[in-house]
């Protein structure tokens, strides 16, 4: 049985561009109206947020519904700041009406009077498709959705940064003691929901929670979008059954180019895993966490090529993340910079004495001390590389040359972004 699903990405082939509203309605039927009962349906479906945290969707909705009173905000988060991820962009470019159906359902169910689509300025194509799709919907009497844009930054999609930007400020995280469900955009109760999550909502509203549970596992029901990249014959965005294992997915999409030297799962805040762990790795997010200490995150799987080095790649990612700090919190600014410095020496097999001890101390020192989880995510992926590839790390520490840095096949981090609006 194939692990590749067709719930979100079914229908016309990608070469035909985005599915127009008429075709969308002919294929899937009109969406029902959103009502408070939908929150119960979502609870039964077991849908969890696809933005990275996998938080139960119904809980977020219930929290906003409690506070809403006819004035609340629904924000569709399509900013996708993770460099390795393309799933939200692809979804919005091919099936915008699924995402927008989900947003409309959320607004109706929660009594929201403001619906915002939050996009990064980096993707012209997404914006074009979305503005066409929104025009089609308004012609059919759907409520208007305003589009807010952000500079393309790693942390711009973090929930409090989204709230800040949509309120007219910069897309930098904020320090708050309350949830955005209580006080979000312009102090109104706010639902910030990843684009893919809302597409699943559009399907669940049509077909029900039992239908959703026909795929996936009891704790991670349904399908999910993954961005597969690196050492693969056919990299790209795929929809997969959450019941599958990582290895099944890799072979179902055509396998690797060379024997994998490891993989990063979950994106730049994710977890490095060595080849033995890859063999039986499940996608189920709870098993992944409890048995393998790994987070599925936004569904990125980046496979290392033969000869590639997790220490080198994780250092490159750390350098990028250090540069992508919002520059607000001392431990993040100073800690990630210090770690990046020491790791560059270690990655190039020329460490100073005590470097690795300082690295471990700083990893612990930095964790949990930012206004957002940027420092936690950055040191999390680093520490998973250091523990998962301990033996190889020791060759770096004794100064033996590693050829990983000159091995192609793993996507390098992009340049850091510019501006915060």
């Amino acid at each position, binding site marked *: 049985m194939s692990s590749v699903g067709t719930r979100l990405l079914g229908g016309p082939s990608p070469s035909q561009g985005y599915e127009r509203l008429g075709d969308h309605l002919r294929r899937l039927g009109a969406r029902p109206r959103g009502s408070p009962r939908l929150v119960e349906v979502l609870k039964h479906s077991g849908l969890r947020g696809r933005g990275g945290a996998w938080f139960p969707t119904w809980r977020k909705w219930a929290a906003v519904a409690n506070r809403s009173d006819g004035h609340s905000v629904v924000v569709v988060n399509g900013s996708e700041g993770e460099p390795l991820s393309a799933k939200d962009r692809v979804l919005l470019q091919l099936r915008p009406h699924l995402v927008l159906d989900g947003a409309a359902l959320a607004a109706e169910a929660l009594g929201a009077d403001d619906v915002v689509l939050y996009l990064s300025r980096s993707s012209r194509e997404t914006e074009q498709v979305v503005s066409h799709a929104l025009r089609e919907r308004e012609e059919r009497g759907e409520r208007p959705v305003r589009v807010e844009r952000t500079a393309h930054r790693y942390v711009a999609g973090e929930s409090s940064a989204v709230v800040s930007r949509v309120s007219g400020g910069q897309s930098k995280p*904020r*320090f708050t*003691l309350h949830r955005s469900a209580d006080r979000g955009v312009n102090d109104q109760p706010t639902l910030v929901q990843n684009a893919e999550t809302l597409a699943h909502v559009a399907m669940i509203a049509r077909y029900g929670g039992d239908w959703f549970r026909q795929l996936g596992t009891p704790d991670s029901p349904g399908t999910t979008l993954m961005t597969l990249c690196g050492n693969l014959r056919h990299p790209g965005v795929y929809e997969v059954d959450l019941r599958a294992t990582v290895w099944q997915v890799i072979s179902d999409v055509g396998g690797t180019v060379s024997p994998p030297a490891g993989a990063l799962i979950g994106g730049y805040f994710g977890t490095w895993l060595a080849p033995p762990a890859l063999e039986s790795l499940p996608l189920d997010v709870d098993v992944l966490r409890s048995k393998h200490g790994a987070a599925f995150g936004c569904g990125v799987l980046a496979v290392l090529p033969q000869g590639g080095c997790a220490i080198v790649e994780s250092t490159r990612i750390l350098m990028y993340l250090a540069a992508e700090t919002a520059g*607000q*919190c*001392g*431990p*993040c600014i*100073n*800690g990630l910079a*210090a770690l990046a410095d020491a790791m560059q020496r270690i990655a190039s097999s020329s460490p100073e004495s005590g470097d690795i001890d300082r690295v471990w101390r*700083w990893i612990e*020192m930095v964790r949990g*001390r*930012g*206004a957002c989880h940027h420092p936690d995510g950055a040191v999390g992926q680093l520490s998973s590389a250091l523990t998962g590839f301990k033996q190889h790390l020791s060759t770096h520490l004794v100064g033996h040359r590693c050829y990983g840095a000159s091995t192609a096949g793993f996507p390098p981090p992009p340049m850091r972004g510019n501006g915060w609006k």
Partner: protein
Amino acid sequence: MSDGVRRRLRVNPILCTGYGYCAEIVPELIAVDDWGYPIVSRVPIESDDLLKLARKAVATCPRLALVIEESTEGA
């Protein structure tokens, strides 16, 4: 202190610029990292003496970056 309220010091890391007065006032709850920024204990404040010092640290911070977060037990 058995009023059923759990109190913890929290620092707003965005406001904090690392003056470090807080760590001098209540080293029992606040250490300083390698760059001069406070590492605030997550352990609830149990004694009146510590609470008094914590409040002094909050009042002394030039950046108004420290807060005492209160939550009811079990919440």
